[in-house]
């Protein structure tokens, strides 16, 4: 379902005639439908860059990204929103809108795609139930704990039933118990059929998890490396 072939990405620092710093040298990987995998590597190795190229915040220098029927190489600007509706993204810092309640933050993802009020209400209730926050639906992000904020972010990411959920260091701001609880939640979501690619530097946290581990180092991906 997600196919990445020979992806390259370098950054120019300062003016364009300065030397480039290669981040991704030759990244290739595949993720099947309903599959869950961890993208592992130390900070600064390019995990977030790779995810950004999947959710189209950045363009690769070369290579191909294919998600379902979409080949990103040939995608037009006006197709980007359509493609992003096939993706859910969660971040270390949750990225919840502070002046909206948990319910409103989740509903936003449904409003932008033109769902009816009734559909939104029903879907938001389902999602809040899934992440265990139905009773906190009217709380604002600053009234929720870090773990709860991340659950709201997950609910928002799942709102449009994406093909793929991308998680960029989602446990980075959580304690061990909340991190474990979040991984269990992601596992339950994966069982429902949603593919998940989660970037993390915390190898200890995921060591015992029964999912694929893709190690990113020196700009390349290797699988199941010790």
């Amino acid at each position, binding site marked *: 379902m997600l196919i990445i072939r020979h992806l390259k990405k370098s950054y120019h620092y300062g003016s364009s005639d300065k030397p480039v710093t290669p981040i991704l040298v030759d990244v290739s990987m595949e993720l099947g439908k309903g599959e869950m995998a961890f993208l592992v590597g130390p900070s600064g190795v390019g995990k977030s860059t790779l995810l950004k190229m999947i959710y189209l915040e950045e363009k690769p220098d070369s290579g191909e990204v294919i998600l379902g029927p979409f080949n990103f190489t040939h995608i037009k600007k006006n197709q980007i929103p359509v493609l992003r509706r096939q993706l859910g993204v969660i971040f270390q810092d949750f*990225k919840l809108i502070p002046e909206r309640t948990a319910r409103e933050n989740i509903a936003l993802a449904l409003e932008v795609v033109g769902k009816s009020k009734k559909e939104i209400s029903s879907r938001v209730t389902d999602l809040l139930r899934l992440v265990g926050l139905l009773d906190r639906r009217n709380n604002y992000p600053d009234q929720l704990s870090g773990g709860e904020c991340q659950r709201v972010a997950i609910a928002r990411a799942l709102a449009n039933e994406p093909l793929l959920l991308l998680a960029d260091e989602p446990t980075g701001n959580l304690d061990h118990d909340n991190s474990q609880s979040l991984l269990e939640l992601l596992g339950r979501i994966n069982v429902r059929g949603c593919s998940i690619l989660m970037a993390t530097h915390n190898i200890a946290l995921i060591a015992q998890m029964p999912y694929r581990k893709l190690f990113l180092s020196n700009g390349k991906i290797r699988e199941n490396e010790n």
Partner: protein
Amino acid sequence: MTFIFLTIRESLRAISHRFISFLGSVLTVFLATLIAGSFAIVTKNISASIDKLKSEASLEIYLESDIDSLTREKLQDLLVANKYILRIKFITKDMALYKLREAFGPEMIAGLKTNPLPESYEVTLDPSVYEKDNFEKLVDSLYGFAGVEDIGYVPTIISRLKMIFRLVTVLGLTMGVLVIVATGFIVGNTIGVTISERRLTFYIMRLVGASESFISSPYLLMGFLISLLGSLLSIGMLKIGTMYFSNHVISVNYLSAIETICFIVGCSMVGLVGSHIALRKYSERF
């Protein structure tokens, strides 16, 4: 949910988030458009005054006391043939004296033993005579006609009014351009600051698949509302001002319904364009 409902809701959310800034922008646009509107009204009134004077424009051609009937008839033919002269009326000495008495009272002529007033022609002019230097040419040519003693006219008021009109028009146009730029800049700046403050909302909306039109429409509406409210306030203030001026000082023409609509729509469009430019400039950063 409908696109329009969401646009209005998001716009109101953005306005309430930065209400003081929104209010400040409305007041600044109000002041800018008030100045532009004042110039428009002044220009319109000067123009109307000139048109009125032009339509009432006339000359008095005083004839020599010893003019013979043949010369007078020739002069009359020449006047009738002139393209800038619409009508002529011959005023006898008695008629002139009667008019003087009507105008200033019988005391004015009480001491007169003989009628000192000359025969004359009252000439109604075509308004086109005030274009370029036609009037001066006409007066010069009339002085050259046999039998003409003198010519009475009030060209200075018209020429001065025309000069003021030109000045006010140039100033008005300059102010208009400045107000357009200022309004666009004020609205654009407010939208830019609002977007900067709401960049997380922008980012999240893009991430969850919102189209650019969905993201930008609330801010376009906000810019439109700033300039619409600003121009409505200034139109209201100008209306009150002209009413007060008309009642207490001198009768002043206000903008017509079409001019008022054009003024409001024009200002609102400037706000819309200003916010569109701001959106293009700022939104690409987030």
